[in-house]
């Protein structure tokens, strides 16, 4: 990298100033593609390894530059925008004005579907934005193709439906119904009834891990692997009933918002939450995650929307607005907040690290409509609004990602491509252990420490789970007089004791501390006497 920067310097003297500006722009995009800092190779003593790694770092630099140039010149589409001149304000622009300025294809995306009989509607989109699933409270489930505006299948399940979610593609979807959650196929056949979870309040799908996460009416969190149907984790959150659950797309962590104003984050492999944040004085109404994983928006009943930075777990911004019942982030970082029949879109006016969300657009619907769910449609400048009288869709210029990658999500997928993608994504399915707060830690060097101890809370929680499991195992019914009650209780006690024994007591810690002091003294011994020093 040293040589190439020298080249750059020479070139800068020759190029006119306009070229220099684009160089600076290119630098920032190159940084994005480099995905972090390079390794520090000065500390290496192994010369062979050092030369290998320097040549590899050079290759990374080259590929990042090529990717930055492709982004600048070769991408087929450009993002949408809404620019006002003079004294006009962007939030006064109405949907009808937008419809006048925009081409026919886009204006087809503004519509209202009125279905007053079936209750407030919840929406979900597939990852490519092509298919939409609408679930009405009174049991109406509809699967639509948004590109052709056609209805693929609608069914009436004749039970309350609390939430709907797509699985990995439009062939399967899950609905949280009155007593249990069900999985349906594309043609409406009921495929599975998920009895273990109980009455589910919210359903979300983790795409990379093929995990269906749900929170039920007693506040229990369940993770189920949909490829083999096994329950990966069932966690008792201990915080009571909650309706607010969102998945962070960046790291696969599930966030629950509780009635005490805390937001807790969970991963399937631990019984204790990863993070607990006190966000609001009252109950948390809604949580939303920015696609880059660093920002989280929460709203509470005190009519404030707070933006949090998840790297430092600090509040970045507070927006004094209305009580936002639902929040959603778009792919480009626009935040939509909805309450009653009013939708407000907030945009980030300053780029870079400091975030300053301000009013961008407003939309108020007919008075009687109560907004149930807002969701931006991926790869389109459209937001879907599910409300008590059906669902609507309005145009928000600048909210969707203009260029999709066919290997990630392709709105123009053929059935053959869909099948291939399903197979490839199954091969790349991540195990649930890879869910962590910082996903870039995989493959990185772990800082050398002594054996990592789980925290006390985690140990307690796991101990309780183990004891519960031991208590709930069923003993064999022995015959021929061997099934005495006294023997049975004795056996059960034994099993609980065994479960407890696997968690060593905390008193060992003091003994270890004493030994460690002895070790430091051993460091001063001469080399020949080192083997007589007290060892661990």
């Amino acid at each position, binding site marked *: 990298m040293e040589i190439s920067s020298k080249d750059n310097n020479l070139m800068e003297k020759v190029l006119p100033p306009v070229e220099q500006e684009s160089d600076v722009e290119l630098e920032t995009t190159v940084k994005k593609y480099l995905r972090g800092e390079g390794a520090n190779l000065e500390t290496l003593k192994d010369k062979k390894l050092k030369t290998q790694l320097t040549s590899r770092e050079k290759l990374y630099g080259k590929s990042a530059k090529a990717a930055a140039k492709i982004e600048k010149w070769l991408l087929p589409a450009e993002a949408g925008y809404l620019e006002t001149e003079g004294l006009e304000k962007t939030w006064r622009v109405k949907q009808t004005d937008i419809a006048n*300025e925009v081409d026919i294809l886009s204006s087809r995306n503004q519509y209202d579907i009125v279905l007053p009989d079936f209750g407030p509607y919840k929406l979900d989109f597939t990852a490519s934005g092509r298919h939409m699933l609408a679930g009405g409270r009174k049991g109406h489930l509809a699967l639509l193709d948004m590109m052709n505006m056609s209805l693929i299948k609608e069914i009436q399940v004749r039970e309350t439906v609390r939430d709907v979610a797509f699985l990995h593609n439009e062939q399967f979807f899950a609905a949280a119904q009155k007593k249990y959650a069900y999985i349906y196929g594309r043609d409406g056949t009921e495929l599975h009834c998920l009895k273990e979870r109980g009455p589910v309040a919210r359903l979300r799908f983790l795409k*990379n891990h093929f995990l269906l996460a749900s929170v039920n009416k007693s506040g229990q969190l369940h993770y189920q692997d949909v490829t083999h149907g096994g329950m990966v984790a069932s966690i008792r959150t201990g915080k009571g009933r909650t309706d607010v659950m969102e998945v962070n797309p960046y790291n696969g962590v599930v966030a629950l918002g509780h009635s005490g104003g805390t937001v807790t984050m969970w991963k399937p492999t631990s019984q204790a939450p990863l993070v607990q944040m006190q966000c609001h004085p009252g109950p948390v109404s809604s949580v939303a995650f920015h696609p880059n994983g660093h920002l989280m928006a929460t709203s509470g009943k005190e009519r404030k929307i707070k933006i949090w930075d998840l790297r430092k777990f600090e509040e970045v911004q507070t927006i004094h607005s209305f009580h936002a019942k639902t929040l959603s982030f778009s792919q480009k970082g626009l935040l939509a907040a909805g309450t009653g029949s009013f939708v407000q879109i907030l945009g980030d006016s300053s780029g870079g690290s400091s975030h300053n969300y301000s009013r961008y657009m407003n939309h108020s619907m007919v008075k009687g409509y109560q907004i149930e769910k807002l969701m931006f449609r991926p790869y389109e400048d459209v937001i879907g609004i599910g409300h008590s009288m059906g669902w609507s869709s309005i145009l928000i210029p600048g909210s969707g990602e203009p260029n999709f990658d*066919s290997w990630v*999500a392709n709105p123009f997928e053929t059935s053959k491509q869909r099948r291939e993608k399903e197979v490839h994504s199954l091969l790349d399915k991540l195990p649930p252990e890879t869910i962590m707060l910082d996903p870039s830690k995989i493959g990185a060097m772990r800082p050398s420490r002594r054996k990592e101890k789980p925290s006390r809370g985690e140990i307690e929680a796991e101990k309780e789970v183990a004891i519960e499991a031991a208590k709930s195992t069923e003993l064999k019914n022995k015959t021929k007089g061997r099934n005495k009650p006294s023997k049975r209780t004795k056996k059960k006690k034994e099993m609980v004791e065994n479960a407890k024994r696997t968690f060593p007591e905390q008193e060992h810690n003091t003994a270890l501390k004493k030994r460690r002091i002895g070790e430091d003294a051993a460091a001063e011994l001469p080399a020949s006497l080192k083997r007589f020093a007290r060892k661990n």
Partner: protein
Amino acid sequence: MKIKTLSRSVDEYTRERSQDLQRVFHNFDPSLRPMEKAVEYQRALTAAKLEKIFARPFVGAMDGHRDGVSCMAKNPNYLKGIFSASMDGDIRLWDISSRRTVCQFPGHQGAVRGLTASTDGNVLVSCGTDCTVRLWNVPRPTLEDSTISSENSIEPSATYVWKNAFWAVDHQFEGDLFATAGAQLDIWNHNRSQPVQSFQWGTDSVISVRFNPGEPDILATSASDRSITIYDLRMSSAARKIIMMTKTNSIAWNPMEPMNLTAANEDGSCYSFDGRKLDEAKCVHKDHVSAVMDIDFSPTGREFVTGSYDRSVRIFPYNGGHSREIYHTKRMQRVFCVKYSCDATYVISGSDDTNLRLWKAKASEQLGVILPREQKKHEYNEAVKNRYKHLPEVKRIVRHRHLPKPIYKAMAIIRTVNDSKRRKEARRKAHSAPGTVVTKPLRKRKIIKEVE
């Protein structure tokens, strides 16, 4: 006011006719791909597992000899054929693709110890314990010879008798001369019945000889007095000689870096030297548990194959201390000679059980014509596996090889022996005055002295 919204026309993003390819669009933005490192790690794990699933290195055996195979020779102009000779004097030319004998060269009375082909491929030179050197004309296979019959036998074009039994022979690259190793090193010309030149240093017999591929006049020999000598034909005496702790069974020059040579030693390791600086080995390749009998480099110069007395064949990287691969079979006994095929795809081993065995150099390689997309996928799998091969799960799978029990146990014993030696050395050092106990690096330890 200016408004623009995204609107994609279906024509731009889908194909026109069904004969066209589907359109693919790329956006390399990392924000579209969350958890890409975890996905890459998962792919590395799958690639490692797939490699193990497809690892079937044994292609076939060529049997026909009636006694153990003692040496082999390859002809750089004819990739399909390999010469092999056995302990009862039977020399055959094999066709590797059908694994059958094309031609036999009977005539030797005792064991054939050395076999080599001239660079143009017309002449085969063999030498044996019956004190004779025989030259044969190799028949040129034509396209009409589709029926390969093993009944061809050829008479030698010349037989030279000499004073002592021979141990090895090698032919000069791009030249007319060949060298035999016996009581001393003799240089012969095809047409003369007596050696043109003779070299001797010390009284011990020379056991192997190898000409340098880059410099046609330089050759390396190893003798039974545990030495390695480098001779230059233009000078009348030897150029350099080093004496090691144990005898070297075979030598091979690196075809891509002709100044480097690797010696297969009796103590189970191979030592790579720079021919210009023999006092220190460049690299010590340690993995065999018994004597290494033969060594041959790949034409890429990046790997070499060794066959050892411990019934296994190993493939080493040219600069690495441990083997990348081990091949063994219950039926394969002591391996006396190995050859790396000229297209760097196969390894041929000749062993005591009278069979030549054909192995793939890369055990999970797909042979035959590979489509470009398949090729790209293989390369991607290889690259992603190499990126994560240090992580414990991937490493466990990549490193795993099934070893035959004797080798496994012998390796454990060697490990404990070395550990205890090292511990003892460390304690000696700790308890002596600093500077009195000096440990020589392994690369120098095995070399006793260099003699001019």
